[in-house]
């Protein structure tokens, strides 16, 4: 989540999906890169011997969770497990959309990219006030 290229990558993915939704020819380069990032982030970590609950790092849950709450229907995303399952499903859909010329719900995928991008930027902005600052600076 701390990769500074990520906001630009997801923004370009949103642009590509927006263009595709209008029937324009798109190379889906950024969409593929964002999809790979998402798949890499969703590393399933299961406690041995324990209940089969997924572990995702707290920042991934924060950013992806907020994005999903914007695009998925009310009440469908409530737990870390829900975040994992819904985000994985969207990553699979994006992979298909960038690989085939068949119809895909480009608009839904674009909305997710936009929601993710805004969630990420908001998360970054919340980190900026933690360091010591000169009290004389305004």
């Amino acid at each position, binding site marked *: 989540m701390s990769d500074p*290229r990520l906001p630009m990558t997801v923004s370009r993915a949103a*642009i590509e999906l927006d263009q595709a939704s209008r029937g324009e020819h798109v190379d889906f380069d950024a969409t593929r890169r964002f999809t790979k990032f998402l798949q890499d982030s969703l590393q399933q970590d299961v406690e041995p011997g324990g209940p089969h609950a997924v572990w995702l790092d707290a920042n991934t849950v924060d950013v992806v969770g907020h994005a999903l709450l914007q695009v998925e229907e009310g009440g469908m995303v409530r737990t870390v*497990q829900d975040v994992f399952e819904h985000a994985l499903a969207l990553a699979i859909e994006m992979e298909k959309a960038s690989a085939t010329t068949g119809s895909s719900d480009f608009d839904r995928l674009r*909305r997710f990219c936009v929601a993710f*991008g805004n969630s990420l*930027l908001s998360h970054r902005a919340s980190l900026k006030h*933690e360091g010591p600052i000169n009290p004389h600076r305004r």
Partner: protein
Amino acid sequence: MDIFVLSCVQAQVDSVLAEIARIEGSEFPYKHTQEAVKETKALFETHRASLASISERSDKATAELACSAAFVDLSESIDLLGFLLRSTNVRNAFEAYGPLLRIARQLLGADTRLIVSSEWYFSPFTYLGYQYLPNFVLIGLPAPESSNPFLLPLAGHELGHSAWTLCGLARQMEKAVEKAVIEEITQGWIEYESFFHSFKPEQVGTDLFARPMWKPAWDWALRQCEEHFCDFFGLRIFGEAYLHAFAYLLAPQRQGMRPLIYPNLKTRAECLDDAAREYGLTVPEGYADMFENLQDPAPEQLRENLLLSLADAARTKFVDVLRSEVDKIVSNAGILTRSPALVENCGKRLALMVPAERSMGLANILNAAWRGWLDPKFFSDQQYNGRKLENLREVVLKSIEILEIEARLEEVT
């Protein structure tokens, strides 16, 4: 998307690219800065192309995200560009660059690139997470101290920040600290129940609406663990010289609020004291007593105090583990830490106001330097004791230069 707003962002991106073109015309003492400038330029050229692809037909939210993404990179890269430009300034101790680069490469990999610069800011710092600058370590020292060799051990702390991520510890600790915070809450549920009043203990870790309530404690605990790790890193590489440099910078700090992402000051010093003994170093008597803890949040800030107590409780569980991890990482890298005999030899040369030869490592020179500082009659020739620090700095920097020359000659023979 308001066309005016889009044109503002495009103009700002163009301004940054023009500034980068000017920086490219600077004289670079080593190539890594040039490479970093080139990578930053590529990032903004991509933004320029991205913004150019937005048209009147573009979805409004998509266009706004493209502008926001460019704007965030603008706001986060300007101080980096300043850092890169200042790395060319003669105020920096270029003599130390070669030895520090060798240490960085031994610890972090042969393809590590290092940039040392200065900042008009009180504390040494590093930049992390610029993924478009892979394998780069960026270390900044306070501008008035950027040529002060006595503070070079603090670069060891900053190297620790890069090691924290590269050695995979960041990821391990994210999970371990989360588990510790949740355990702390569920085992002390009576104390925390009113804070998490809408939730059951078993929901605290999994519910998306419960998690943000404790997440700041997780973040603070994780950052505090990282700071302990980095302190131990600097200590393990530079020995007692790190203790002295740390005290130089932070012991005078008595007032102000405790930054929540750091362990408190005296706590840090006490942990350094313990670590130094475990690493077989000699701790100055009363070392931790030189420091004072800074103020915690005011009692009426109930939420901050609760979260901070959670963070501190989680962090303390990992101090011993972090100390051992650092020892393992530095030992496995084959870093030559300070040798009492070589420190003694360096000291004898420095006391004659003669640069040390065959020091065999930066740690030996810097430990000898600090012994010189702490000895009021260090120089054999009394005439040098009048301006002792100035004279010591000069002869120490020359010793570091000789260290680098010897290393380069050894490479070719």
